[in-house]
C-alpha cells in the first residue's frame, strides 16, 4: 500500500466530525463531476465537433448554459466546499480539539447547501445563463443571486466557527505558537472574508435590488469593480489550501520536513495583505478607470508574486530534504527518489509542475501592456486551467487520496489506477493549455463557440484540434481519479481494526516554538491589509460610488 497507515493516530477525529468533513467532499466531488462534464464538450466544440444538439433532451439548451455550469460548479462550488471541509479538518487536527461551536459550522455548511440548490435550479432551467462572472446588465433569475449569497455567507459562518475554536485554544495556550497549518487555514479564511466584501457589495448593493425591481438600472463599471475586488484574491482562496498541503503536509508524505516554518508563515501573511489591493489588473482594458491606477495595481500584482516565489523555494527545499533522506543524490537526480508511486504525492508534484508554467504565464497577464494583447483570449482559460484547474484541483484530488481513507477508515482503492488518472490529466493539460495559450496569442477569443464564428482563420485549426484532444484526455484522467476516490469512499473493505490513515502533518526543520512572535500576531497584518486596500481602492471606490450612473436596464441572456 502506498498510503501509509499507523496504529496510533495523533488525534483521531470523532465520527461526527469525520462525517461532517466527508459531507463537504461528497458535494465538492459531485460538483466537480457535473461541472467537468462540459470541459471536453467545450474543447471539442472548438475543435469543430459540436455535441450540444444532443444535450437538448437533457435540458442543456446551449454551449453557454453548459459553460455557466462549468464555471460555477468547478470554480465556485468544487473549490469552496472542498476548502471549507479540508480546513475544518486542518483546524480540528492542528489544534487537537473539537470545534468549539459545532452547530455554528453546521449552520454554515447547510446554508451553503441551500445556496447551491437555489443557484443551481435557475442555471439548470436556463434562467441564469450568465456565466460564473454574471456581469450585468445581463440578468439572471433572482434566485441565482440569492443562492450565491447564501454560499458565500455560509462559508463565512464556517470560518467564524474556526475563529471561535482558535480563540478558545489560544486562551488555554498562552504564548504557544499557533501550529503552522492552523495559522495558514485561518489566514486563508480571513483572506476570503476580506475578499468577498466586494462581491457582497455588488450583489446586495446593486444586483439584488435591481433584479427584484427596486432599482431600474445598474452601473456596469461599478459592478465590475466590486466583482474584481473579489475576483483576484479569490484565486488565492483557492490556492492557499493547496499551499497548506504543500508546506505543511506534503513534506511529511515524502519523509521530509518543512524547510522553514517562519518563511512559510511569512508567505501566508504576505498573501493576506497583498492579494486584495490589485484587482484592477483584471480591468486593464476597462474604460472609465484611470490608467495611473491600473499601473499602480500592475506593480502591486508583481509584489504578490513574491510570496509565491518564496513558496517555490521552500517547497522544493522541503522536498529535496525528504528525497535525500530517502537516499536521493545529485543536483536534480534526487527528484527520482521522491515517492512517485504514492498517487497522493504524485498528484501534488504534478500540480506543482503545472503551476510553474501557470506562474510564468501569470507574469505576462499582469504586465498591463502585454495584457492588452491577451485579454479575453483563449490564453486566459489556458492560463487558469494551470492554476485553479491544475495546481488547485490536482492538489485537492491528491489530498483526497489520503483524506478519504482517513475519514472512512478504508484503504485507497487501486493506487495504480489513481496514478494513471493523474498522469493522464497531466499530459492532457500540457497539450490543452499549450494549445489554448497559442491560439489565444493568435487572437482567438474565449467564451465563444468558435465553431460558429465567421472569423476563424485556418492557422487556428490545428491548435483547436489540440484543444479538443488535450481536453478529452484531461477529462478521462480526472474522471479516473474521481472514480478512485468514489470507490474508496463507498467500498466495503475496511482497514484492519486498529489501523488508521493519519493526517500527514509535517514537522519543520526550525523549531516552531522559536518562530518570531510577529509572525504569530494578527493585529499588525490585519491593519496592514486594511491600509493597503484603502490606499489602492479607496479613491477610485469613492469616485465610482459617488459618480454612480445606474443607467443600465436588465437584459435577458
Amino acid at each position, binding site marked *: 500500500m502506498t498510503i501509509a497507515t499507523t496504529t496510533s493516530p495523533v488525534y483521531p477525529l470523532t465520527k461526527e466530525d469525520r462525517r461532517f468533513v466527508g459531507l463537504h467532499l461528497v458535494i465538492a466531488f459531485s460538483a466537480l463531476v457535473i461541472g467537468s462534464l462540459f470541459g471536453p464538450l467545450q474543447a471539442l466544440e472548438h475543435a469543430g465537433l459540436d455535441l450540444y444538439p444532443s444535450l437538448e433532451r437533457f435540458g442543456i439548451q446551449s454551449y*453557454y448554459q453548459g*459553460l455557466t455550469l462549468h464555471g460555477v460548479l468547478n470554480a465556485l462550488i468544487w473549490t469552496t466546499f472542498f476548502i471549507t471541509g479540508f480546513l475544518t479538518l486542518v483546524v480540528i487536527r492542528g489544534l487537537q480539539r473539537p470545534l468549539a461551536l459545532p452547530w455554528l459550522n453546521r449552520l454554515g455548511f447547510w446554508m451553503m447547501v441551500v445556496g447551491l440548490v437555489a443557484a443551481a435550479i435557475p442555471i439548470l432551467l436556463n434562467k441564469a445563463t450568465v456565466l460564473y462572472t454574471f*456581469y450585468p*446588465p*445581463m440578468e439572471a433569475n433572482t434566485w441565482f443571486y440569492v443562492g450565491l449569497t447564501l454560499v458565500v455567507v455560509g462559508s463565512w459562518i464556517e470560518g467564524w466557527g474556526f475563529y471561535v475554536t482558535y480563540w478558545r485554544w489560544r486562551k488555554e495556550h498562552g504564548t504557544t505558537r499557533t501550529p503552522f497549518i492552523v495559522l495558514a487555514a485561518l489566514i486563508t479564511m480571513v483572506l476570503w472574508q476580506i475578499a468577498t466584501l466586494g462581491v457582497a457589495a455588488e450583489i446586495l448593493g446593486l444586483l439584488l435590488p435591481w433584479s427584484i425591481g427596486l432599482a431600474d438600472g445598474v*452601473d*456596469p*463599471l461599478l459592478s465590475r469593480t466590486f466583482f474584481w475586488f473579489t475576483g483576484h484574491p479569490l484565486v488565492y482562496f483557492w490556492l492557499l489550501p493547496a499551499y497548506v498541503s504543500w508546506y505543511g503536509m506534503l513534506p511529511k508524505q515524502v519523509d521530509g520536513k518543512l*524547510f*522553514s516554518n*517562519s*518563511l512559510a508563515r511569512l508567505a501566508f501573511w504576505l498573501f493576506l495583505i497583498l492579494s486584495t489591493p490589485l484587482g484592477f489588473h483584471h480591468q486593464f*482594458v*476597462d*474604460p*472609465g*478607470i*484611470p*490608467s495611473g491606477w491600473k*499601473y499602480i495595481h*500592475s506593480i502591486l500584482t*508583481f509584489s504578490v*508574486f*513574491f510570496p509565491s*516565489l*518564496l513558496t517555490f*523555494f*521552500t517547497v522544493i*527545499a522541503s522536498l529535496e530534504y525528504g528525497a535525500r533522506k530517502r537516499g536521493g543524490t545529485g543536483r536534480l537526480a534526487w527528484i527520482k527518489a521522491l515517492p512517485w508511486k504514492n498517487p497522493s504525492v504524485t498528484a501534488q508534484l504534478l500540480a506543482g509542475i503545472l503551476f510553474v508554467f501557470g506562474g510564468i504565464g501569470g*507574469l505576462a497577464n*499582469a*504586465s498591463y*501592456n502585454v495584457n*492588452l*494583447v491577451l*485579454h*479575453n*483570449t483563449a490564453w486566459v482559460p489556458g492560463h487558469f486551467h494551470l492554476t485553479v484547474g491544475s495546481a488547485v484541483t490536482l492538489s485537492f484530488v491528491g489530498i483526497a487520496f489520503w483524506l478519504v481513507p482517513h475519514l472512512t477508515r478504508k484503504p485507497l482503492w487501486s493506487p495504480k489506477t489513481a496514478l494513471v488518472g493523474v498522469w493522464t490529466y497531466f499530459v492532457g493539460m500540457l497539450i490543452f493549455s499549450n494549445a489554448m495559450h497559442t491560439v489565444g496569442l493568435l*487572437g482567438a*477569443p474565449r*467564451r*465563444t*463557440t468558435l*465553431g*460558429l*464564428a465567421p*472569423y476563424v482563420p485556418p492557422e487556428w485549426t490545428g491548435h483547436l484540434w489540440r484543444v479538443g484532444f488535450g481536453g478529452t484526455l484531461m477529462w478521462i484522467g480526472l474522471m479516473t481519479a474521481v472514480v478512485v476516490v468514489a470507490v474508496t469512499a463507498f467500498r466495503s473493505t475496511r482497514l484492519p481494526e486498529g489501523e488508521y490513515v493519519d493526517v500527514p502533518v509535517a514537522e519543520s526543520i*526550525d523549531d516552531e516554538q*522559536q*518562530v*518570531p*512572535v*510577529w*509572525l504569530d500576531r494578527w493585529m499588525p497584518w490585519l491593519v496592514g491589509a486594511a491600509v493597503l486596500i484603502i490606499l489602492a481602492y479607496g479613491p477610485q471606490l469613492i469616485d465610482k460610488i459617488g459618480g454612480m*450612473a445606474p*443607467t*443600465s*436596464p436588465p*437584459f435577458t*441572456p
Partner: protein
Amino acid sequence: MTTEELHVDPAERNWIVASIMLLVVFGVAVAIAGFMLGIQVPTEEQRVDPRTVAQEAPWSNPGVRELVPGEEYEVYILASRFSFVPNTFEVPVGARVTFYVTSTDVQHGFKLQDTNVNFMALPGQVSKLTTTFEEPGTYSYICTEYCGLGHAVMAGSVTVTEPGGNA
C-alpha cells in the same frame, strides 16, 4: 531565548534577493513600456447613457471621420447584440486611427486582430484607443465578451487600402 529575529538559510536569502530583483525588473519594464514607448490602455474618457446614446451625436451617425486626409481618422462604433455598427469601413494605410466604442445593451468586448486594440465595450462608458495600420489588408474586429447566444457571430472588418488603390 530571542524569538524576534527571523532566521533565514543563506541559499534562501539569495533566492529572496533574486526574486525581488526579478520583480523590480518587471515593474520597471512595464513602466518603460507604459510611459516611454507610449503603449496605452483605455482610461477615463466619457460617460454616456446607454438608453439614448444611439440617438445622440456623434453616435447617431457612427462610422469614420476623416480629420486629416491620409493621416488622422476617428471611428465611432456602436456595439449591440449581435453586431457592430458599422461592421465594415475603410482607412488608408499608415493613418492614425482612433477608435471610440460603446455598448447600447450588455457588456461586449472589442478586439481588432493583429493590433494593440483590445478593450471592453461597456454600456455607459466610452472606450478609446489609437492604432496605426502599417500594412494594407483586412483586419477583423471581434466581440470578446459573452453577450448572448449570437456572440460568436458578432464581428466586423476594416479594410486598409494602399494610397490611391485597393487593399
